[in-house]
């Protein structure tokens, strides 16, 4: 493996759009000349059940097909998953792991709940933003906006352009505008420790 590779793990409940986000992000970075790989946790998909998604972003083609064991970034779409040992939000994390959590709580509060020494915790009220902008509690796209506030894999403007490409064939302009707005707001409203 030559060059830098970012490995992201998504924690969510079925229906929150984490699979879409994990795969969309892998697609969105193509425009930047980067390589992406996105996959959901393989298995039956059930609404409301805890699930994981994975994204790898790299400068060179990604060859490995194994699970991500030590994510550099963990994105939590449903904060109640932090209370579940089975959800494994902190599995394989440690010093320097970046957590981005969809919650109205402060990063310090979340950090103490997570209990990962040396972790960098950010929070954002992605569900609130989604309700305001899209009108539905689907926090996936705002969470990508939040991610770009702390990672330079691409700019928010680039993400928005990819988002338009992705959504334009299937959704109305109102939904598209809502999503663009959500991404913008989340990237600005991210709260860091």
């Amino acid at each position, binding site marked *: 493996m030559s060059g830098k590779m970012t490995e992201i793990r998504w924690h969510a409940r079925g229906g929150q759009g984490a699979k879409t986000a994990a*795969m969309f992000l*892998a*697609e969105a970075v193509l425009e930047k000349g980067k390589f992406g790989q996105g*996959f959901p946790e393989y298995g*039956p998909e059930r609404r409301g059940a805890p699930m994981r998604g994975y994204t790898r972003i790299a400068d060179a083609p990604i*060859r*490995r*097909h*194994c*699970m991500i064991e030590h994510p550099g970034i963990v994105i939590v779409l449903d904060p109640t998953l932090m209370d579940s040992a089975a959800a494994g939000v902190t599995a394989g994390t440690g010093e320097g792991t970046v957590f981005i959590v969809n919650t109205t709580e402060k990063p310090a509060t979340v950090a103490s709940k997570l209990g990962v020494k040396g972790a960098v915790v950010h929070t954002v009220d992605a569900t609130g933003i989604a309700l305001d902008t899209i009108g539905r509690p689907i926090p996936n796209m705002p969470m990508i906006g939040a991610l770009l506030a702390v990672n330079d894999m691409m700019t928010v403007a680039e993400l928005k352009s990819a988002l338009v490409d992705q959504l334009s064939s299937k959704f109305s302009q109102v939904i598209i505008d809502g999503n663009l707005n959500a991404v913008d707001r989340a990237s600005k409203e991210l709260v860091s420790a």
Partner: protein
Amino acid sequence: MAQKLVALSGNEAVAYAFKQARPHVAAAFPITPQTEMMHKYAEFVANGESTTEMILVESEHSAMSAAVGSAAAGARTFTATSSAGFALMWEVVYIAASLRLPICMALVNRALSGNINIHCDHSDSMGGRDAGWIQLFAENAQEAYDNAIMSWRIAEHMDVRLPTMVNYDGFIISHTADSLHMLSDEDAYKFIGKYKADYALLDVENPITVGPLDLTDYYFEHKASQLAAYPRALEVIKQVSDEYGDLTGRYYDHCEEYLMDDAEMVMVMLGSSAGTAKDVIDEYREKGVKVGLLKIRTFRPFPVAYLAERLAGRKAVCVLDRSASFGGQGGPVFMEVRSAMYGLQVPVHGYIYGLGGRDFDLGQVATVIEDLQKVAAGGEMNTINLLGIRS
């Protein structure tokens, strides 16, 4: 040749490749993880991007049966399945090959029951390895797409006329968004070409009888003629791959050789895990360990001479199987490779890994390389070893 860089799942990539062949008929029944491939295809038809007639059958047995009828009628035909679906097709899978019908099939590899498991291993395709189909394996969505494009040329080639199976790992490839280069519809179709059957049921002015009762006096001769097609198929696969390479810049052979030139130790495997292995091989190479990888693409026909030539003179070889031959020695890939190595005097051992989707991680590759070093230094390994199981 202008190609488009896209991010697609393996299932979507293969759906595109099949669509680009402009098949007349598709017959399939849904099974995880093949489903999304057929969903995508159904979308093409619903949106008018494809004029394929789809037969939405009530089982995989009927899917393969309808495919046989359609191909015998003279139509370019494909199907797709996984695991138990392939097992249910079984009887007709053999018939498709025996009737020399150039059907293409996406086999999205998944473990066989029981217990029921929806994840990747190769037991489905390996169980069908003697059925007479050409079997190609892929490491990622790009290779699955490329194999699917080439599968038509191979299957329909006059020296071959055999059904061809495009294998790719369930979920690991089928459901992973991956970047790949795609040909335009026009360029792909130009490469694949128009299909015309030599004998067709629908040629009612020149009627034919297909699939007669064939007894002791002729059956064997028919099988002999079928057997003669496989060495020719190996040549055709190479020719078609070379031509595809000239078109796309992506050249394929029966195997991919990764850091093989000076390799003293060689891992032999197929499917998505080869990519994971390459990353770890690079790490060991940096430490000066001369290890390489031979990734099998053409499993049927098995490229015996090719492998024997590449594996001669190595200090240690190991073979990784993502399926088991219960009661046999190790897995099918091991048995084939060791048989191809007969007389080479190169030590070879095997692993069974990843059954039922068990993750094939970087640590497992490291273990394999450590084992190879031990053998290269004169040590011994069990002939067959299980990798990545709880102790």
